[in-house]
């Protein structure tokens, strides 16, 4: 049994015309305990959909295939009752916009108690203690229990949401752009909080489009492009020996503080719509290295060094056409 969250060959397809179009295709990820995996990609690359699939929350029009396992328990195809038990207890998720992710009608405490008491047989005071402990762990005080969402700031709400997600001590936490709506100082604290949760044993899948955030807290990183993972591996490996032209493009497109004035390199073109993705490598129309072979069939996902995989025929830094398996 693989420890942590194991995603194998996950494909998420939607009906399109007479056939189906895959929004996510061939997604392989592994989030180990005590580890933060940063999942990076442009808008529309399928990051959030992948996250929802990990909880079995994909829309009903979506056809899921492949496998998502949480410490060995299969999510794909599990029945709703099983999923309800797994969610929160084994795997939980925090969302991008904390302002709208909490029910405005109930206090934070009220919303937390409901979930805690559903997963554990605790009486009210024990559950309150659990909730208070989770809030404290997330950097809030017990007073937050009696607050309504509108009485709190964005940063506090994000903490409250994290507290709610960790209240049942899940093994895996999925954070879907948890800091996008927050300013940088609050962002730094939230990232610190995620880091400390990982250090205590949780496996965290951190979804973001901010490479800076990944560099700051992640142990490993995976780059997603148009529904598939194009490069993944150890943070240092991927950042220092970037192999996929798309990953390199992403890095060249992000500003670096203190590097003086330089023109940012934009990747030409746009992400292809998943309904009309070109055959072969999805990135080939925008790639400077593309050759004929890139248009032929699915590009293999190869290991170029220990804990560093790339989906490219011509990884940067390797001799042309070399494919190491």
């Amino acid at each position: 049994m693989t420890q942590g969250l194991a995603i194998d060959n996950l494909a998420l397809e939607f009906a399109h015309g007479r056939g189906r179009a895959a929004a996510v295709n061939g997604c392989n990820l592994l989030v180990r305990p005590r580890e933060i995996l940063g999942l990076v990609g442009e808008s529309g690359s399928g990051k959030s959909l992948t996250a929802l699939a990990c909880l079995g929350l994909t829309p009903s029009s979506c056809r899921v295939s492949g496998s998502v396992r949480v410490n060995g328990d299969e999510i794909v195809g599990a029945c709703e009752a099983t999923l309800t038990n797994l969610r929160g207890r084994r795997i939980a998720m925090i969302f991008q916009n904390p302002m709208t992710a909490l029910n405005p009608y109930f206090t934070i405490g009220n919303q937390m108690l409901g979930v805690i008491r559903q997963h554990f047989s605790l009486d009210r005071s024990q559950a309150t203690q659990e909730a208070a402990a989770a809030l404290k762990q997330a950097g809030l005080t017990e007073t937050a229990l009696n607050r309504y969402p509108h009485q709190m700031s964005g940063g506090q709400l994000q903490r409250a949401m994290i507290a709610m997600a960790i209240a049942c001590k899940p093994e895996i936490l999925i954070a879907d752009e948890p800091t996008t709506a927050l300013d940088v100082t609050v962002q730094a604290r939230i990232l610190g909080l995620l880091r400390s949760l990982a250090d205590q044993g949780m496996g965290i899948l951190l979804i973001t489009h901010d490479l800076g955030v990944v560099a700051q807290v992640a142990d490993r990183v995976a780059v997603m492009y148009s529904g598939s993972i194009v490069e993944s591996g150890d943070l240092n490996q991927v950042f220092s020996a970037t192999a996929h032209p798309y990953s390199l493009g992403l890095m060249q497109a992000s500003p670096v503080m203190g590097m003086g004035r330089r023109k940012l390199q934009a990747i030409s073109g746009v992400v292809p719509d998943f309904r009309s993705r070109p055959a072969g490598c999805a990135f080939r129309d925008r790639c400077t290295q593309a050759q004929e072979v890139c248009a032929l069939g699915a590009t293999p996902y190869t290991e170029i060094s220990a804990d560093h995989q790339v989906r490219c025929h011509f990884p940067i830094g390797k001799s042309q056409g070399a494919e190491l398996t």
Partner: protein
Amino acid sequence: MLSPTFSHLSSWPARYVAWSRRNIFVTMCATGFSLIVLAALLAPFLGLPDPAKIDFSVKLLRPSSMHWFGTDALGRDIFSGVVHGARISLLVALGVVFMAAAIGIPIGLISGYAGGWIDTFFMRISDIFLAFPPLLLPITLSALLGPGLFNATCAVAISWFPWYARIIRSSVLTVKSELYVQSARAIGTNPFSIAMRHVLPNSLSPVVVQASLDFGFAILTTASLSFIGMGAVPPTVEWGLMVASSRSVFLEYWWTAMFPGLAIFLTVFFANVVVDGVRDSLDPKLRGQP
């Protein structure tokens, strides 16, 4: 609660007075409505004559200091009838609105939340109810159930519930896709408590508005049913029934129809103005406007 325009006033009575000055008409109607409610509550303790007591020796008397609103063809005191009738009318209106909401809300919630064939099933049933002309269905239903106030209340409630079901369904559909509902699912909240704790409370406000607007209309509809003999039966004292019993005499003895009719008119009117005023003052979009 009240407009932020008055938020500089510290105490709530001061704020209320300021609000009343700007909404003088609503305040007047609210006062009138409160008087009617008060009369309804206190009717048995006012020392009025029994409104159902028949005494032919005093029939069809003009309004006087003895009988403020006169007496009807059976010698019943009309003032006492109007005051006691307020009890019935308000109670029936509350009953209609609550019953219609009690049937409509669960159906709308289940339809909107479950979707699929369940949704189709309930909504087509609602469509059947809504296909009848507004007063025809209550009349038919009361004819089936037999006369009597309770039956009339049920008849009106049954013919109105589809409105509530539809309103709640449409707001459930919106709320269902809110992020907090998804985030509740993501931490493993079971579907029942998502529906009850997250979806329902957040979908309720349009129904509350509709229910309060319907309050006046419910009085009118049950009075209409009583008028055509489908609602209250003697000796119950009900405004619609009072108007009905004056039919043969009111051309000469105007007070027999006028006072109960006026009671219906004023209650419905006050109720609608007050509900509108309160709704406007709670609506953030209309705040601060004259």
